[in-house]
C-alpha cells in the first residue's frame, strides 16, 4: 500500500537535492535550511519528538538570522523564452495540466470504481499521493519532450523555492503552533471570554458576536478549522441553538464561512496569502490581503444576514 511515508521520502529527496545545489552555489544558509527540511522528511518518522523539535528550532534560527537568500541559477533569457513559446505553442500547457488531471481524475476513478478494493493507497490519502504521481509523470513528459540539461528541473525548482524562502514552511509551522495552542487550552480560554461578553436576550447581537468571533479567531489562528470547534462550543451551540432555538445546519455552515472571511484578511493564513505574494514576487508581503479585504468585509456582513435570516426568521 502506498502511504504518505512514500511521499515524504520523495519530498525529502527533492529537498536534499536543493540543499546540495545550494551548497555547490556557496549559499550556506540555504543549503543548511533545506538539508534540515530534507532530514525532517526522510528521518522525521524514525526519531523522537525532541529531535524533531530541535530540528524545527534550528530551521527557525537560520531563517530568523536572515540566512536564506534568493538564488539565481543559470536559465534562459526573456528573449529565448519568447522564441521557445512561439516554437512550442500551446502544447506547453500539457505537462502543466498533467498534475491536476492526474490528481482529480485519479481520485474520482479510484473512489468510484472497483479500484478502491485494491487498497492501493492509504485511506483518504489518495489525492495527495496521486498529486505526487502526477508530478513524476509531468516531469518525465517534460524531460523527454524538451530534452533540457539534466539538472535544469532541479535548478529551476531551486530558483522558485528560494524566491519563496522561509515562507515555504510557514504553513506547516502554523499548523504546529495550532497544536501547541490546543495543548495550552487557548481555545477554551477564548471561548469563555467570548461567551462572557454577550448581553442576554438579543438574538441578533449574539449572531453578530458569533460571526465576529469566528472571523477574529480565524485571523489569529490562520484557519477557520481551529476557530470553529471553540466558537461552536462557546456560543453557537449553547446560545444560538439551545437557548434561542436556531437552525443548527445554518449556524454550523454559515458560521464556518464567516470564519473563511477572516482567512482572507490574515497573514497567518500563509499558504493562501503570504506564499502567493512571494511566488508572484510582489513588493508588499501583504499585497494579496489588501486585494481581499474589500471582498471579505462585505461578504462577512452578508454571512451575518444569511445566518440571522436562515437560522431564525425562516426557521421559527
Amino acid at each position, binding site marked *: 500500500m502506498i502511504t*504518505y511515508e512514500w*511521499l*515524504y521520502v520523495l519530498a525529502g529527496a*527533492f529537498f536534499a537535492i536543493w540543499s546540495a545545489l545550494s551548497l555547490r552555489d556557496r549559499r550556506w544558509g540555504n543549503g543548511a535550511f533545506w538539508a534540515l527540511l530534507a532530514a525532517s522528511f526522510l528521518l522525521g518518522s524514525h526519531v523522537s*519528538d525532541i529531535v*524533531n*523539535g530541535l530540528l524545527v528550532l534550528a*530551521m*527557525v534560527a537560520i531563517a*530568523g538570522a536572515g540566512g536564506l537568500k534568493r538564488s539565481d541559477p543559470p536559465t534562459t533569457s526573456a528573449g529565448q*523564452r519568447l522564441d521557445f*513559446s512561439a516554437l*512550442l*505553442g500551446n502544447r506547453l500547457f500539457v505537462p*502543466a495540466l498533467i*498534475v*491536476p488531471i492526474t490528481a*482529480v481524475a485519479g481520485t474520482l476513478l479510484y473512489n468510484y470504481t472497483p479500484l478502491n478494493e485494491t487498497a492501493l493507497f492509504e485511506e483518504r490519502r489518495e489525492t495527495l499521493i496521486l498529486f505526487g504521481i502526477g508530478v513524476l509523470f509531468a516531469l518525465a513528459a*517534460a524531460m523527454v519532450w524538451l530534452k533540457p540539461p539534466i539538472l535544469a*528541473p532541479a535548478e529551476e*525548482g531551486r530558483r*522558485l*523555492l528560494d524566491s519563496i524562502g522561509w515562507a*515555504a514552511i510557514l*504553513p*506547516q509551522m502554523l*499548523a*504546529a*503552533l*495550532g*497544536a*501547541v*495552542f490546543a*495543548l*495550552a487550552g*487557548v481555545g477554551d*480560554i477564548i471561548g469563555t*471570554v467570548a461567551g462572557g461578553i454577550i448581553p442576554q436576550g438579543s438574538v441578533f447581537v449574539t449572531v453578530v458576536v458569533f460571526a465576529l468571533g469566528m472571523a477574529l479567531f480565524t485571523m*489569529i489562528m490562520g484557519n477557520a*478549522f481551529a476557530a*470553529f470547534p471553540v466558537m*461552536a462550543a462557546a456560543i453557537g*451551540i449553547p446560545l444560538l441553538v439551545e437557548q434561542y432555538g436556531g437552525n443548527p445546519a445554518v449556524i454550523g455552515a*454559515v458560521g464556518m*464561512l464567516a470564519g*473563511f472571511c477572516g*482567512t*482572507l484578511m490574515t497573514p497567518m493564513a500563509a*499558504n493562501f496569502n503570504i506564499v*502567493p505574494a512571494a*511566488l*508572484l514576487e510582489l513588493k508588499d508581503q501583504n499585497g*494579496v490581503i489588501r486585494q*481581499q479585504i*474589500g*471582498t471579505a468585509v462585505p461578504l462577512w456582513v*452578508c*454571512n451575518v444576514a*444569511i445566518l440571522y435570516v*436562515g437560522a431564525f426568521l425562516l426557521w421559527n
Partner: protein
Amino acid sequence: MNHWPLLGIALVVFGFALRFNPLFVVAFSALVTGVLAGLDLVSVIEALGKAFNDNRYISVTWIILPVIGLLERYGLQQRARALIEGVRGATMGKLLVLYLAFRQLTAALGMKDIGGHPQAVRPLVAPMAQAAAEKSHGELAEDERQKVLAMAAATDNVGLFFGEDIFFAIASILLIQAVFESAGYPLTPLQLSVWAIPTAICAFLIHGSRILALDRRLGKAAAGGGVR
C-alpha cells in the same frame, strides 16, 4: 482560569506587526504559550516537533516546483500571455470573473486541486490577467501591475473558499458535522452544504464586481496618464 496563555496570541500579533521573521515569531510564541500554560520547556519543544512532523504533508506540495520552473524556462508564462493577446475582446475583468466562476464551480464539484498558487496562478492566471490588462489599457505602472497580480491570487482564494463548502465531502463540512454530532445534533453533510450556496452567490457578486471595478480604475489611470 489561567488567562496567561493568551499572551502567546499577543506575541504573534505584535511580532507580525513589527515585521520580525514570521517563522521566528510563530516558534517563539509556541514556546511562550506552552510555558505559560504550565508545561515545561522540553515538553513544549517535543509537542512542537511532533506537530511539525505530523503536518509534513502540507509542505509536500512544493515538489511541483521543478515542473513549473522547467516549463517557465521554455516560455510557459509567455505562452499564457500570447494566448490571451490572441483572444479578441479579452479584458482583465472578463478573464478573472470567468476564472472566479470556474474556480467556484470546480471546487463545488470537489475538484479543489485544479487551481492553486504554485500550479495555476503564478504560471497561468497572473500572466494572463496582466496581458489582458495591458491589452486594454496599455503598459501598466508598476504599482498597478502589482495590483493586477495580487487580484489574480485573491480571485483564486475567493473562488476556492466560497466554492468548496458546496461539495459535501470536504474537510470543513465533515468538521462541522462532527462538532454538532458530539453536541447531540446529528446533521447530514448535504444539509450543511446547501447552506453554503447563498454565501457562494454573494461572494461571486461582490468579488466579481470588485474585479470589474479594478479594471475600470486601471482604464482611468491609463487615460489620465495619457492626458498629461
